[in-house]
């Protein structure tokens, strides 16, 4: 019987032909936690009464969500993470290394066809690398850490085909916001979404990660893509792992199918307080914004920074605007430094944070005041997400964020004409 990508990956990892609805025990290739979830991973692991982690090299912890620590409580968690790592000989990406979802692929831990668990909901990011990666809670992660396995319900699959060529000033972030706005926050609950089509193929691997990253915002278990030459080249550059791409069978069964043509897509904005509250930019242009955040696991990669920097170059942000730029990893930070992007940001009036999650999680580095509004390149705009329930958050692309920072109000990046850039231009 024909299989989807998710069915194939769960079959190879469980040693049996698996189909949607089956419950399987599967071997996990890699798993990790971040500083918001690792404390509970450690507690759960200890409660299991297992002496050693299943395999040292298959696990790491990333200190990214609140790093450097803003208070004593967080410092204690960071300390606990480091002690556990020392005790078990596992790797920690400490303060300043970057966001887990950038580091895990960047350090070569992910290859095509892998099964990856992360104690962070945006673990679905590596679907862009043809891996079944999904977020779980701390206890689920501890189970995988102790046993090398976990149980999975093989998900149904949905096919989202994105055709056409993106207009100038419109990016993969706009595509995924548009799709989420169309289908809603729970359309893909428990489902594996496969993204395909000419518009997806045309994107860089980094831009594809932006799409897979946000699959969870429509409820998806994972946001998978087929591997092509770009995917395998990317993995070769970052990893020594074997590369075995997994494609769906031609007559694989999909619960839902959706098709979009993005040739005329406008920049998209997700409005407070839900990610599926999406509109074309013209409906919200002019709304005053106090803080702009560029970064996160959604849009903190080098090309995202370059897209923003080209718009900001030689200009100043609006009076009173707090522009906060957070590179997703140390490597990206250094590359951005060498490319002169950091200078452009600082010159424009931006604050450049150390690599990490930045203000996205609301614990530090840009907490909003009562009544303030933020425009962010992150993936969530829930009430209180950036630390204050009496503030509001709009989401969009790095280009829209940069244009907004210059004007102090939500602004259409397409007004920046020849400054608009995308990789490959």
């Amino acid at each position, binding site marked *: 019987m024909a299989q989807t990508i998710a069915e194939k990956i769960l079959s190879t990892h469980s040693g049996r032909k698996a189909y949607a609805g089956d419950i399987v025990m599967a071997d996990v290739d890699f798993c990790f936690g971040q500083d918001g979830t690792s404390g509970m991973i450690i507690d759960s692991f200890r409660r299991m009464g297992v002496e050693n982690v299943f395999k040292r090299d298959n696990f790491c912890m990333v200190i990214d969500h609140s790093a450097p620590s803003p208070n004593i409580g967080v410092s204690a968690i960071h300390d606990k993470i480091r002690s556990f790592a020392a005790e078990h000989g596992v790797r920690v990406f400490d303060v300043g290394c970057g966001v887990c979802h950038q580091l895990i692929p960047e350090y070569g831990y992910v290859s095509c066809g892998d099964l990856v668990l992360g*104690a962070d*909901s945006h673990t679905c990011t590596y679907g862009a690398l043809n891996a079944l990666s999904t977020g779980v*809670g*701390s206890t689920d992660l501890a189970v995988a850490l102790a046993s090398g396995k976990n149980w999975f319900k093989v998900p149904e699959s949905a096919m989202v085909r994105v055709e056409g060529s993106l207009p100038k000033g419109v990016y993969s972030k706009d595509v995924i916001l548009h799709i989420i706005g169309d289908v809603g926050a*729970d359309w893909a*609950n428990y489902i594996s979404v496969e993204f395909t089509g000419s518009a997806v193929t045309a994107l860089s691997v980094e831009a594809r990660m932006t799409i897979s990253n946000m699959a969870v915002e429509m*409820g998806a278990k994972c946001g998978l893509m087929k591997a092509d030459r770009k995917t395998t080249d990317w993995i070769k550059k970052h990893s020594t792992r074997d590369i075995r791409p997994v494609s769906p069978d031609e007559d694989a069964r999909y619960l839902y199918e959706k098709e979009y043509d993005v040739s005329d897509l406008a920049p998209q904005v997700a409005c407070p307080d839900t990610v599926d509250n999406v509109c074309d930019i013209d409906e919200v242009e002019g709304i005053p914004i106090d803080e702009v955040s560029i970064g996160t696991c959604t849009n903190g990669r080098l090309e995202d920074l370059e897209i923003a920097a080209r718009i900001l170059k030689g200009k100043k942000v609006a009076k009173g605007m707090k522009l906060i730029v957070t590179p997703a990893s140390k490597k990206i930070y250094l590359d951005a430094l060498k490319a002169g992007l950091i200078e452009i940001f600082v010159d424009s009036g931006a604050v450049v944070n150390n690599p990490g999650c930045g203000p996205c999680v609301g614990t530090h580095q840009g907490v909003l005041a009562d009544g303030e509004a933020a425009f962010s390149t992150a993936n969530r705009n*829930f*009430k*209180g997400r950036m630390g204050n329930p009496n503030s509001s958050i709009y989401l969009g692309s790095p280009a829209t964020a940069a244009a907004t920072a210059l004007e102090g109000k939500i602004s259409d990046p397409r007004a920046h004409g020849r400054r608009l850039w995308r990789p490959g231009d």
Partner: protein
Amino acid sequence: MASFARRLKISNDINTDYIISGRYKFKIQDHKELAKHIFEDLEEGFYKRIKPGDFLVAGDNFGCGSSREQAPVALKASGISAVVARSYARIFYRNAFNVGLCLVECETNYIDDQDELELDLDKNMLVNVSKGVNVEIKPVPEVMRKFLEAGGVIDYFKAHGGFGGVT
């Protein structure tokens, strides 16, 4: 002792940030303390309305968003015996049963705040005592029943020396 429905003003897409804000998940390690802050950004003082054994009642896609396990942990520590919703987001769904919090899936449109409820997992039935109606619930999958009966996945794992008997 009778148990009652507790509803928030909003019904759908209640995310884990709303269940317990990121502000507290780093700051507070004690579960009972954490429980005092549930739904604080939506309705301050909601915690005080919960009596041990009560049911939290919601609509679609309960628990969407962040994977934080503090969400089901704080709900369990608040004293509620189960969440009753039309549907759940998947990470929260796994997390809840893993920590021994029961989730019930059924039509919740006709359950009002303060309705007296009785849950019978064996008969797949939720009795709305106040309205005198029985609501059929989606059977809790066998894996989840096993975890729940053991007190959570870790206790299951310990009792069985692994995952024997899950699949």
